[in-house]
């Protein structure tokens, strides 16, 4: 596959993004030239240990970085438009219409004093054009069932109350789409009245409500019980079949990636270090860090004395290691690794890796 055609079917291109956090203790070099792309309609998994910059990458894409963060280099192109160069208002519109994000903890991310309905309907109310279209479409439906009680179709009332009605109807649709049993009731409930799994479904519904071209899921099963996790994953699988948009799935769980993703990008200390199709990566992990991750997955069919771990710990990103950021933990490190940062290198079949072991035709 040539890189030209790859660019053509790319939805999102993240090119060489560098990002620092200004803290009291110093500059945290959180992203160190992150580069990857998400193709139209695919699900890309972004994996790595906590603190490696996965979530920061997602927040950079949607323009929701905390105040002490600044992007020093790079660009993020969504269908050719640079998100990093946009004004606040432009990026806000992108969030409203194109990129939707679901977060880790449904308990803290839902507003405790607003009902699910209030938090969901406001998403639809942002797009008055779509509301008008839906209203026109459904008017027939409303009038068909008019015998019952609905008077809004007959007398053209205030535009706003009409919009709210349509938004409510759409909210019920989307709540059923995420398999909530009683959407009408859920709309009137407050987050604390729902279970964790239901809350996460509501947050997913808020993302689906925007009909996004890119759906970003940031560790969305981490805060849930194991059984609930399975249900949410099942829902994601189902949604993936129905939806046309792309997905960026952020997780530290390679199992989740294997089930849901088409391609995987592995991240370490602010760098993408390996990128490949799911099957290829699992069959043939090249980067020593990826190989370590694979060995750390507990397998039922493989008997082990103890679970393997990667020796060493996540580096201090205020004073990151020179050269390849993984070299202090790498069993194969040699002199060059300490001096020179490895570039992402094409090693065939859409597989790229950033490691000096595979440079200069070694692979």
């Amino acid at each position, binding site marked *: 596959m040539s890189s030209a055609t790859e660019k053509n079917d790319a939805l999102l291109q993240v090119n060489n993004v560098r990002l620092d956090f200004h*803290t009291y*203790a110093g500059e945290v070099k*959180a992203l160190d030239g992150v580069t990857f792309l998400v193709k139209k309609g695919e699900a890309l998994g972004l994996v790595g240990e906590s603190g490696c910059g996965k979530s920061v990458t997602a927040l950079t894409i949607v323009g929701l970085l905390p105040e002490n963060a600044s992007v020093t280099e790079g660009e993020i192109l969504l269908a050719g438009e640079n998100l990093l160069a946009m004004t606040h208002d432009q990026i806000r519109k992108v969030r409203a219409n194109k990129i939707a994000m679901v977060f880790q903890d449904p308990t803290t991310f839902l507003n405790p004093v607003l009902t699910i309905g209030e938090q969901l309907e406001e998403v639809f109310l942002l797009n008055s054009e779509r509301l008008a279209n839906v209203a026109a479409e459904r008017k027939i439906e409303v009038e068909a069932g008019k015998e019952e009680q609905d008077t809004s179709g007959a007398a053209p009332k205030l535009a706003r109350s009409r919009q709210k009605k349509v938004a409510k109807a759409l909210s019920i649709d989307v709540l059923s789409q995420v398999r909530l049993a009683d959407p009408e009731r859920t709309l009137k409930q407050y987050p604390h009245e729902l279970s964790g799994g239901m809350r996460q479904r509501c947050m997913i519904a808020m993302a689906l409500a925007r009909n996004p071209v890119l759906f970003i899921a940031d560790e969305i099963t981490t805060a849930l019980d194991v059984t609930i996790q399975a249900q949410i994953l099942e829902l994601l699988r189902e949604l993936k079949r129905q939806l046309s948009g792309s997905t960026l799935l952020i997780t530290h769980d390679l199992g989740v990636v294997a089930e849901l993703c088409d391609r995987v990008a592995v991240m370490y200390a602010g760098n993408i270090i390996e990128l490949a199709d799911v099957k290829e990566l699992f069959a043939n992990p090249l980067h020593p860090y990826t190989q370590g991750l694979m060995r750390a997955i507990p397998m039922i069919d493989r008997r082990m004395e103890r679970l393997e771990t990667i020796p060493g710990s996540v580096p201090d990103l205020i004073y990151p290691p020179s050269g390849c950021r993984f070299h202090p933990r790498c069993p194969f490190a040699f002199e060059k690794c300490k001096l020179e940062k490895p570039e992402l290198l094409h090693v065939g079949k859409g597989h790229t890796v950033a490691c000096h072991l595979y440079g200069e035709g070694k692979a």
Partner: protein
Amino acid sequence: MMALQRPSSWSPAIAELKFALHLLLQNKVVLVGTVISVGVLITAAIGPIIISPEVATSIYLPGRLDPPSSAHWLGTDDYGRDLLQIIILSTRLDISAALIIVGADLLIGVLLGAFSGFVGGKFDEVMMRITDIFFSIPGLVLALAVAAALGRGLNNLIVAIIIVGWPGYTRILRGLVLAEKERLYVDALRSLGIGRFRIILRHVIPNTIYPVLVQSTLDLGGIILTFAGLSFLGFGATALTPELGRLITTGQSYIFQAPWLVAFPGLAILIISLAFNLMGDGIRDVLDPRLRR
């Protein structure tokens, strides 16, 4: 998140201390408050030494109500006394009254709060209901009622304000003690056969008292206002006793004729109270990790 990491090369305690100092020095307003507070305390202490207390009782009627001039920087009052000297003499009474009140409230509040939290049960329940009652009467109104019942006089006024103030400390300390008594060292001490009272006085109180002390610094400013206010209404000091609230009562009769008689003593109260508030505010900010960012 890594944005919150501090350099691992420092030991946590030293890093913490450095950070607190850094915050304290960074805040110049707090520094100013602390400097003024110390200045006020010194003035109150040495006032009667540098200015003869007889100034307060030496009446010179021909020179009464003189406006501020080079001879009398802040003018003279209705007895012909130099207002600046009188204000300096007055600070001693206001400051010492406030310190006595806060000190007594701390003692009562801390002891009751510590026992309430540590002993728990019925005693705790009763103490908390008593504080509820005190919180349902506006402080100054209750102080006024108690002072009225006790009769006029400086000591009665001080007692009245003390009676109003302790429940706040009791509440704070009780909460802290409730958390503290769950800690392992308390069980350890108990298993060694050390008595309750000893554990409370020697171990629990010293470990929980700092937030209450910070609160008391913050309260000093308010206590000064309450004391001066009730004094203004006619409780406490007699006419010739140098006291700031009292000075304003006298000045009130001459408000349009000699406005400095009201303006300067009031300004003195404002500055003293402000200084204590600035200092208390700063200390709380530095000690409260939630407010740091």
